[in-house]
């Protein structure tokens, strides 16, 4: 896959060993000789901003040729125009004429290599720019194009190698010693130039290294400094934070403490009345009572009332029994009297129905009645009955008072065992 498109694909360029082509049609079976592009005249090396010569005019098209001619003329005109502004040596004085004369020998092909390099320091950084200042005879004019490595000028006229040759020696093509010199010069010069370049390169590299090393040192130092400062800054910040935190905690604790104390004081004051009021309320509710009072109320008084009750019961009982006794006696008396009255009725029936107005024995009869204390209704009823029977008895039996009294005495006697001894 092609990631890049070429207008013309890169290809190896064939070179022409021979200066002149034999035929237009090169036999194809001969191996193609590829030339070194370093030494190819077609390759432009160096500054391409200057005006270029271009390829030699090809007389194919008349129009193109005319155009080329015109451009050449323009270039020449421009050159002439510029020549006026070129600084030149002053015009010749009256009576003199300036000639451009070659003062020195033609420079050998490699001589420019042997020239001393003047080093001029052109930059500020200390970078040294080597400027080769070559002195060339004024006649030589570098073509305004890339300068080939080997000067294009034909060079000085060479002496004939066959001159002064003794007979018998085969004619030489060239004079080795003479011819070798420039070649040697070139070779040696090139080698030396290369070596110099390499040395320079090494020097440059060394100086670069030194520079870099210095720079690194500086940089490290600065970096260390920066780090130190940063560390310091960080420590300061942390310290500040910590102190702020501490302070905040202290303040917080203080407020909390004061709040707690306020709360405690308030609670104490608020509940100061709690105990008395609790005891008061419990006493009102009756939970706290005076034990003596309670004991009297619960224990003593009921017992007392009970005993009083009992005492009263006793006396009431006594009286009830007494009533019963009296009733019994009176009943018996009545029965006896009735029996007696029954007998008397046979003898004197007309007197039996007299109204019982005369009470012969009221004092005697009433006497024992006084012994009876007023009792209940039942006893009262008995008493009435008793009274009527007594009155009836009183009418019929004045003689029998003794027997009545006997009966009474009998009752009284009988009473004694029933007299209940005291409470």
């Amino acid at each position, binding site marked *: 896959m092609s990631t890049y498109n070429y207008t013309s694909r890169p290809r190896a360029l064939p070179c022409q060993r021979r200066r002149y082509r034999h035929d237009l049609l090169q036999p194809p079976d001969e191996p193609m000789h590829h030339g070194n592009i370093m030494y190819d005249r077609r390759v432009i090396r160096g500054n391409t901003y200057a005006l270029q010569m271009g390829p030699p005019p090809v007389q194919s098209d008349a129009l193109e040729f005319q155009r080329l001619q015109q451009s050449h003329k323009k270039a020449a005109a421009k050159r002439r125009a510029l020549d006026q502004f070129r600084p030149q040596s002053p015009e010749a004085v009256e009576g003199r004429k300036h000639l451009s004369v070659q003062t020195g020998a033609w420079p050998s092909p490699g001589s420019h290599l042997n020239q001393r390099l003047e080093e001029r320091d052109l930059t500020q950084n200390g970078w040294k720019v080597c400027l080769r200042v070559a002195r060339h005879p004024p006649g030589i004019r570098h073509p305004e194009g890339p300068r080939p490595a080997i000067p294009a000028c034909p060079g000085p006229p060479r002496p004939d190698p066959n001159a002064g040759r003794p007979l018998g020696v085969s004619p030489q093509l060239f004079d080795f010693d003479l011819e070798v010199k420039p070649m040697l010069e070139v070779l040696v010069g090139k080698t030396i130039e290369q070596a110099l370049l390499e040395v320079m390169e090494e020097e440059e590299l060394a100086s670069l290294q030194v520079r870099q090393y210095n720079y690194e040192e500086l940089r490290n130092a600065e970096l260390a400094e920066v780090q130190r400062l940063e560390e310091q800054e960080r420590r300061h910040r942390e310290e500040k934070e910590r102190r702020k935190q501490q302070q905040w905690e202290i303040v917080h604790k*203080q407020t909390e*403490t*004061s709040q707690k*104390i*306020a*709360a405690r*004081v*308030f609670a104490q*004051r*608020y*509940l100061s*009345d*709690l*105990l*008395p*009021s*609790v005891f008061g*309320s*419990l006493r*009102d*509710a*009756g*939970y706290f*009572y005076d034990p003596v009072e*309670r004991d009297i*109320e*619960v224990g003593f008084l009921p017992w007392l009332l009970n005993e009083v009750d009992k005492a009263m019961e006793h006396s009431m009982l006594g009286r009830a029994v007494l009533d019963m006794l009296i009733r019994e006696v009176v009943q018996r008396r009545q029965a006896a009297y009735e029996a007696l009255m029954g007998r008397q009725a046979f003898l004197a029936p007309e007197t039996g129905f007299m109204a019982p107005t005369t009470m012969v024995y009221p004092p005697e009869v009433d006497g024992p009645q006084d012994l009876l204390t007023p009792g209940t209704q039942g006893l009262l009823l008995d008493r009435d009955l008793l009274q009527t029977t007594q009155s009836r008895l009183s009418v019929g039996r004045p003689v029998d008072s003794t027997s009545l009294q006997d009966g009474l005495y009998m009752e009284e006697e009988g009473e004694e065992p029933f007299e209940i001894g005291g409470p």
Partner: protein
Amino acid sequence: MDATTAPHRIPPEMPQYGEEHHIFEMMQTLLEQLLIHQPKEPISFMIEHLQRNNDNVPKIVILGPPASGKTTIAMWLSKHLNSNLITKDNLIEEEFSHQTEDVKNYYQMTKTVPNELLMKMIQTRLNESDCIKRGWILDGIPETREQTLMIQSAGVNPKHVIVLNAPDMVLIERNLGKRIDPNTGEIYHTTFDWPHDVDIQKRLTIPEGISEVETAQKLLEYHRSIIRIIPSYLKVLKAISADQPCVDVFYQALTYVQSNQRSNAPFTPRVLLLGPLGSGKKLQAGLLAQKYNLINICCGQQLKEAVADKTQYGEVVQSFFEKQITVPDSVIMKVLSQRLKQQDAIKNGWVLHGFPCHLDQARMLDSVGYKPNRVFFLNVPLDTIVERLTLRRIDPVTGERYHLMYKPAPTMEIQARLLQNPKDMEENVKAKIDLFYRNCTELEEFYEDAITLNGDQDPYTVFEYIESGIINPLPKKIL
């Protein structure tokens, strides 16, 4: 001086918090329970007690002679307060299944239950969870002093005791008309409480023991015992006459049950008096401040004082005074809060009048943190206000203030030169009163616990009402 000895300022939120949540009463009940039960693990006992949170449940005892309507009132109260009704019959029904045979026989023979047994039954019943959660109402227990003493020693303390009173003859007559619905157990009366439903009417039965003689005997017993029970419950007692219609009795009982007993909690009164112009707020505030050392804060007065003192707020207020427009709420609020946060106002309490005129002002007062704990609305009819205000006069020479009806000027000469303040003209007065009535419904809604008083009486009567409102704890509304 370290943190413990530096002077501390108790923030006013603390007493307010204590009051709101009735901390003192809570502590009191807690301590009482601790003393009564004396548990081995006091802390867990206290925690349990606090979690039960039943300090406010009703604990009521209702006593009264037969035919006074005890049971009716008790049943109505228990329904209303959502509480448990406990009578002797209830207890006997529920608990007797647990008792032994001879006890049952004894009961069947004598129809009485020995006191100790009754006490035990009551205690077990009151310790059950529904009584703990919802409270209890005892109907007709205790009957005798011994029972009272036993209950008290057991630690059962009713919060309210209601005794119904009525003349004997009324009761005897009333008892003759008593009828019972056998299904529900409700008591009806031939004259006073006849049921509407015909079915219930048909099935009503005559209970036994309602003849005059029996009633008289029961009354005798009752009088003998009640006279000895009453002294034990003097502090929580209320006697209600049962000779009224049932509803009145019930209403009285309900209001009594909803009121709390006075507690010894420390209390700084922060009183708010609201009412239309001329209802007597300033006068009452003055009396209160004099008697109880409260700080009398009248809104208008404070603004004028601020102006006179030339404080920063005073200048702002003055600009409004000059233009004769009402000062905006925020400024008033700032002036008042400055006054209210001073030490003496916090310590002694305050009486505020003339300030919240409408709901926004009331809300602002609340938000700043000065909540009043007693709010009084003085209701005065319009005519009285007009009469009170339009007849005010002032004597320009001596400066004495007179009133044409209540405090007339002594001599004709003075009377001739009396002048009336243009603010007291009828139109102005009526305008201001209208303004108040427009806002007063909102204010009543906002202050739910407010007490409304009749301001149409003479000032000392009104003052006594206000005093009782301040001193007695706020009734808790169950309705």
